[in-house]
């Protein structure tokens, strides 16, 4: 299936009595944005963690670009081409924007084992990092220390780091969270274009963004996918309305 | 080796474990609630022993001496918490290690300045100075038996304190979420002082109990401190149950290792080199145990990830 880049097959994960993932199947195809939505506690974070490699599923299988990655580590999956952004920013807070993005560039190159040459004078890495920073619109903040960035800027930085890896699949965990209206709008149009580069599995609470961006939407409730389909299908899906959208509308 | 001797050695191991538990309980409690590594815990042990020796010398009463050890260590603990320790809660472990390392220097030399360089005298009370005969004909030191009982009592007391009382509830809340406990309206700094003083008092008590059968001298706390750290790391830092299990494991490993290893090596080498090799390995045994536990369970037996 060359068209399907990420294929999650029937995975389950329990914590004691709690079934956080209950036979979830999901796929991501070339060129699309596939949004994953669901109420709080539906098991979105657990699912993301299993896809990224932080948690191992109890049963089931995850294929990435045709490889079985179920047992691989985070770093190994990243090397295969999985680019991830986090719900809560995972950044080196003492580093500048540039330094953080350089880390991504290092990862892309496949290793940090050069011990003598000054990394900041490595033209190739720097170019890669700077272009990513430009694409997310942080050029003016390039030498600012990350801990001094605003919340929204940190999200942009996360995306920039993911970009340097030139991933074949993006896994984005609530990139819009905490962004102002202006920022959300900018990021929405950015992501819209990004799908040309690589498909995106997008977990997002911002329904405007989801409906604007998603080619397909999957709805996760109590660890199960209750529906998958395009925007209209989901909008009009009875069970979804009851379980999820209904509450929101009310 | 006779069965009676083996049983006696197991009993010795348990008793050594219980002594370690008294020390380790305070250490693990302080870490669990405040997230603080306290290298100066050994100094509080020393304070307890010196206070007990001083009071026993002037009053002749062992009970008063024990009370003094509890009080002195608790007071010193509270003062240290107020002056120094509370500035360290938000710091990283490195700062905590170094600041409490500095406290060791200050405590040790101040004690030597006050009491001199020679060991002080502290003896077991007359009533407990003999032996009791246990079933099976084992003559066992009454005082050591009392230490086992005190240790068991402290263990039960701590479990009750933590599971049944208001303070215990707050302590548990503090372990889980330090911000939540503030939100509950509990005066967190008072609670911390209290917990630190409690841990210090336990260390002081064990210093006094142990001081009566060992020697009360400057620097007595550090070897025990290292052992207590081994104990809580094996048990899982922050867990009282872990401290108990870890202490007994360390006590048994150390005692039985000392006895068994030389005998074991004597099977295939000459006596005096077997004694030497066996003793060398025995002195490393608990550290090997600790490394082994951490390799399989990186957060100790009962630690939280």
């Amino acid at each position, binding site marked *: 299936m060359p068209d399907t880049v990420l294929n999650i097959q029937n995975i389950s994960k329990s914590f004691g009595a709690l079934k956080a993932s209950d036979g979830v199947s999901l796929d991501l195809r070339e060129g699309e944005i596939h949004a994953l939505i669901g109420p709080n506690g539906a098991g979105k974070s657990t699912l993301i963690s299993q896809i990224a490699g932080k948690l191992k599923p109890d049963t089931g299988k995850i294929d990435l670009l045709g490889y079985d990655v179920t047992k691989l580590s985070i770093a190994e999956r990243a090397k295969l081409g999985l680019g991830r952004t986090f719900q809560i920013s995972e950044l080196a807070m003492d*580093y500048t924007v540039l330094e953080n993005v350089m880390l991504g560039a290092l990862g892309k190159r496949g290793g940090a084992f050069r011990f003598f040459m000054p990394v900041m004078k490595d033209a190739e890495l720097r170019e890669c990092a700077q272009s990513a920073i430009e694409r997310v619109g942080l050029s003016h903040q390039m030498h600012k220390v990350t801990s001094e960035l605003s919340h929204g800027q940190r999200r942009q930085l996360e995306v920039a780091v993911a970009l340097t890896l030139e991933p074949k699949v993006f896994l984005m965990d609530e990139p819009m969270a905490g962004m102002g209206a202006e920022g959300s709008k900018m990021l929405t149009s950015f992501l819209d274009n990004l799908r040309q580069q690589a498909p995106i599995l997008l977990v997002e609470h911002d329904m405007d963004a989801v409906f604007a961006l998603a080619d397909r939407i999957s709805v996760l409730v109590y660890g199960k996918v209750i529906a998958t389909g395009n925007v209209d299908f989901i909008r009009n899906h009875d069970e979804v309305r009851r379980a999820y959208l209904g509450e929101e509308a009310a | 080796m006779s069965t009676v001797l083996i049983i006696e050695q197991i009993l010795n191991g348990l008793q050594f474990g219980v002594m370690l538990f008294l020390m380790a309980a305070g250490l693990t409690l302080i870490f669990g609630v405040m997230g603080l*590594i306290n290298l100066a815990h050994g100094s509080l042990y020393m304070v307890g022993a010196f206070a007990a020796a001083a009071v026993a010398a002037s009053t002749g009463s062992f009970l008063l001496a024990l009370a003094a050890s509890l009080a002195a260590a608790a007071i010193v603990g509270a003062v240290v918490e107020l002056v120094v320790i509370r500035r360290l809660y938000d710091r990283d472990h490195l700062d905590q290690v170094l600041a409490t390392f500095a406290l060791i220097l200050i405590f040790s030399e101040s004690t030597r300045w006050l009491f001199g360089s020679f060991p002080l005298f502290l003896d077991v009370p007359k009533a407990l100075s003999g032996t009791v005969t246990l079933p099976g004909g084992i003559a066992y030191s009454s005082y050591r038996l009392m230490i086992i009982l005190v240790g068991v009592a402290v263990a039960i007391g701590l479990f009750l304190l933590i599971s049944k009382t208001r303070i215990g509830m707050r302590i548990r809340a503090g372990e889980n979420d330090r911000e939540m406990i503030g939100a509950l309206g509990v005066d967190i700094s008072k609670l911390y002082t209290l917990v630190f003083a409690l841990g210090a008092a336990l260390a002081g008590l064990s210093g006094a109990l142990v001081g009566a059968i060992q020697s009360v001298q400057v620097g007595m706390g550090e070897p025990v401190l290292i052992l207590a750290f081994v104990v809580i790391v094996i048990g899982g830092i922050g867990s009282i149950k872990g401290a108990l299990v870890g202490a007994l494991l360390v006590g048994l490993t150390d005692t039985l290792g000392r006895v068994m290893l030389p005998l074991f090596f004597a099977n295939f080498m000459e006596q005096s080199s077997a004694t030497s090799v066996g003793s060398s390995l025995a*002195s490393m045994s608990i550290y090997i145990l600790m490394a082994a536990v951490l390799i399989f369970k990186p957060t100790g037996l009962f630690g939280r990830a």
Partner: protein
Amino acid sequence: MISERFLNYTVALLILGMALGAWVMDEPFLITLTTKAVILALAGVGLNLALGQGGLISLGHAAFFGLGGYAMGVLASHAQNFTPIMETPFLIEGTNSMPIIWLVAIVVSSFFAFVIGLFSLRTSGVYFIMVTLAFGQMLYYFSISWPAYGGEDGLSIYVRNSFPGLNTLDPIQFFGICFVVLMVVIYGVNRLTHSSFGLALNGARQNAQRIRTVGLNPFKIQLIAFTISGAITGLAGALFADLNRFISPTMFSWQTSGEIMVFIILGGVARLYGPVVGAALFILLEHWLGGLSEFWHIYLGVILLSVVLFARGGLIGALSKKENADA
């Protein structure tokens, strides 16, 4: 306020000047003292790589310091007695040539650092501190009860080892060797800090999850850093043994680990010259306060405590602009 780089040069020149001044005034002991500071600084530079850059708080670096010392002791004692270290399966002779001893010290201590790191790095936080301490204690007890090289008594080497073209028994020449070694290592560590590896290592300290997500393996990075760090401290151990012409299990004790850590905090964590300033200050305090009172440990404790509580950047932090070291 002054820039950190200027401060670094000043410190290096000050140490050099101190030794040269003492040489001119014919004060060999002052040279010896300065040499001690230089060697301890080197041990600190080693630990600082793991601790400052990598965030790996090792309370077991005395293990590597001791291993370096014993590498020197074992080699030199065999050379001194003209007995081979081993004959089967192949002959290994002792030596009293410093460069060979250094090489052996580096190989041995980095091997142990690699193995200890392999196990210890599975843990983190307090567990890491304690498991490194445990490994240090193992070696300590081993060295005490291992009779071949003196056990608790330690081992005296009567003549300082030789370095081609120099008279190592002349204090100023031995100082020169140690100073050059320190400068070379500092240069190397500085390059390392600003290399790709340094960027990843510092990144792993700040956020290991981030490093993993970009496809790098923080464990591998930290293991390499820990190994290099152990090797540097081991080299310092070999020099320290040569300074005293004596080794003993004290080099393995946990107090030694604590003292190396103290140098770093006195000078400033993660700063290139932090351990240098710290070690110099420590030696100065030791000799000053030691002369003032039998109870000088009290003052040392108070000073250390104040630095930890109130001067978090260490002495360099207090003198230069920023509280945080830049990476």
